């Protein structure tokens, strides 16, 4: 495989104008606003865009809405990790000469949609899982967490989930764009109502309205743009099942493959990572992913996150935007991990800025713990 490390950079990123509860905007409007803001951030215009990427909608819809006629088009849609994977696809396309300025957009109205998209009855999950109520990710991920508790101990797993919920909220309290900014105590966590045992309400991500966009371009073009390039050092992607009942191992996400591959491509080690951005659809997702990525061994996650280690002031910052748990989560959240990683690497994060943040690892998870995409990002 060609060595594409540091061959492209993220040069622009932004959310849509308002995120959270936004009842009167369409999902495509979030795409366009975010694209507008991300192109401004890069110092580029719509006319510079020749590669277009999205998930959920087809790029036919996003291109039509924004008035873009792309030369390279990619609607890879594998859940919330899609937008991380798009970065790798943009890297490949730019290096192969198919496009030079890649625009990745996202927009969803998970909270306020006037017409939610119905699932496809031809999928095996509709035939074999939905009739039993395996509907929606809280239920699917809860079954994975139960298995983890069985294998590694219920009490220490419960404590780990609480640590993650509380530490993530502490970061959200430092992010003006976060939806949930009130303090959360451990008691608040344990007292919150059951959604699907073993998940409390505070194990589960928010459901919001939001959009975000990311602009990727060649190393050469990146050097002449408005802000310092955020280099893509490594990237990897993959998946190992569709519905939760065909997941090979409920306590091991595909990050076990994509993490090591992305790190190897980047030529960095885990101890070089200044900031981990990890898709937290649920507290359990963070726990299982830290292990999958190899930051600790299997079953060691509860020790790894103990004592608010991932919170502000801890020595292993995770999800400094407040995560899907407390900042925003419109449905497929992955792109917001990149928004925060880029801002941290550029030093734009104010009160929540991680000091001397040079190298980031971002891992997106999609579907029913089905897919992962990992990237390693860095700034000179």
């Amino acid at each position, binding site marked *: 495989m060609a060595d594409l490390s540091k061959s492209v950079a993220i040069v622009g990123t932004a959310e849509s104008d308002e995120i959270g509860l936004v009842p009167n905007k369409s999902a495509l409007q979030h795409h366009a606003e975010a694209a507008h803001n991300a192109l401004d951030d890069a110092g580029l215009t719509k006319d510079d865009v020749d590669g277009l990427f999205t998930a959920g909608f087809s790029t036919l819809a996003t291109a039509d809405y924004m008035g873009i006629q792309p030369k390279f088009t990619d609607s890879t849609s594998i859940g919330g990790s899609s937008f991380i994977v798009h970065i790798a696809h943009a890297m490949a396309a730019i290096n192969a000469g198919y496009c030079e300025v890649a625009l990745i957009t996202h927009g969803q109205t998970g909270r306020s949609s006037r017409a939610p998209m119905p699932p496809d009855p031809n999928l095996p999950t509709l035939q074999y899982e939905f009739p*039993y109520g395996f509907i929606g990710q809280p239920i699917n991920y809860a*079954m994975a967490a139960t298995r983890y508790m069985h294998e590694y101990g219920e009490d220490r797993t419960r404590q780990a989930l609480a640590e993650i919920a509380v530490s993530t909220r502490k970061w959200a309290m430092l992010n003006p764009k976060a939806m949930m900014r009130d303090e959360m105590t451990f008691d608040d966590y344990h007292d919150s109502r059951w*959604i699907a*045992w073993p998940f409390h309400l505070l194990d589960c991500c928010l459901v919001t309205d939001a959009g975000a966009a990311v602009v990727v371009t060649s190393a050469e073009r990146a050097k002449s743009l408005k802000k310092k390039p955020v280099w893509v050092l490594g990237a990897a992607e993959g998946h190992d099942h569709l519905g*939760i*009942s065909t997941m090979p191992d409920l306590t091991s996400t595909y990050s076990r493959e994509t993490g090591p591959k992305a790190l190897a491509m980047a030529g960095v080690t885990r101890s070089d990572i200044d900031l981990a951005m990890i898709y937290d659809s649920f507290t359990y997702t963070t726990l299982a992913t830290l292990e999958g990525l190899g930051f600790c061994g299997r079953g060691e996650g509860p020790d790894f996150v103990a004592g608010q280690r991932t919170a502000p002031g801890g020595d292993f910052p995770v999800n400094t935007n407040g995560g899907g748990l407390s900042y925003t989560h419109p449905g497929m959240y992955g792109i917001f991990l990149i928004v925060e990683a880029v801002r941290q690497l550029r030093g734009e994060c104010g009160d929540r800025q991680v000091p001397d943040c040079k190298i980031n690892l971002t891992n997106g998870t999609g579907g029913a713990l089905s897919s992962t995409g990992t990237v390693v990002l860095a700034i000179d």
Partner: protein
Amino acid sequence: MTEQAYSKPIPVPQGESDYYWEKAKAHELWLRKCDNCNQAYFYPRDICPMCFSRNTSWIQASGKGTLHTFAIVHRAPTPAFRDDAPFVVAMVDLEEGPRMPTNLIDVEPDPAAIKVGMAVEVVFEDITDEITLPKFKPAAV
């Protein structure tokens, strides 16, 4: 008293799964098995997902298995499940090898009453004239 229509999701069989659902209607649980790599698998499909052989057949399952995992659903995922909540979603490791999604019934929806690894056995719930769902309950001791 009029019978209330079944409002939860009803599976739409595909050609390759008609047999599975016909057998479920007869209160039998049947699985696909690969005659090349000799493994049973779930969900039913014509081509083996392990070795990709087309040399596959059907076997009747014993209906016995162990609980692989579960969750207790308190917040109904759709209005149709509201009357059921709290209810137990589960995956069962069948004696023949495959793992299948299901509900655990005839049990208190309480984590103290349900243990991963517990023995379970199939029961059949006729949800419409055409469709029967295989569910599981704690095995008789």
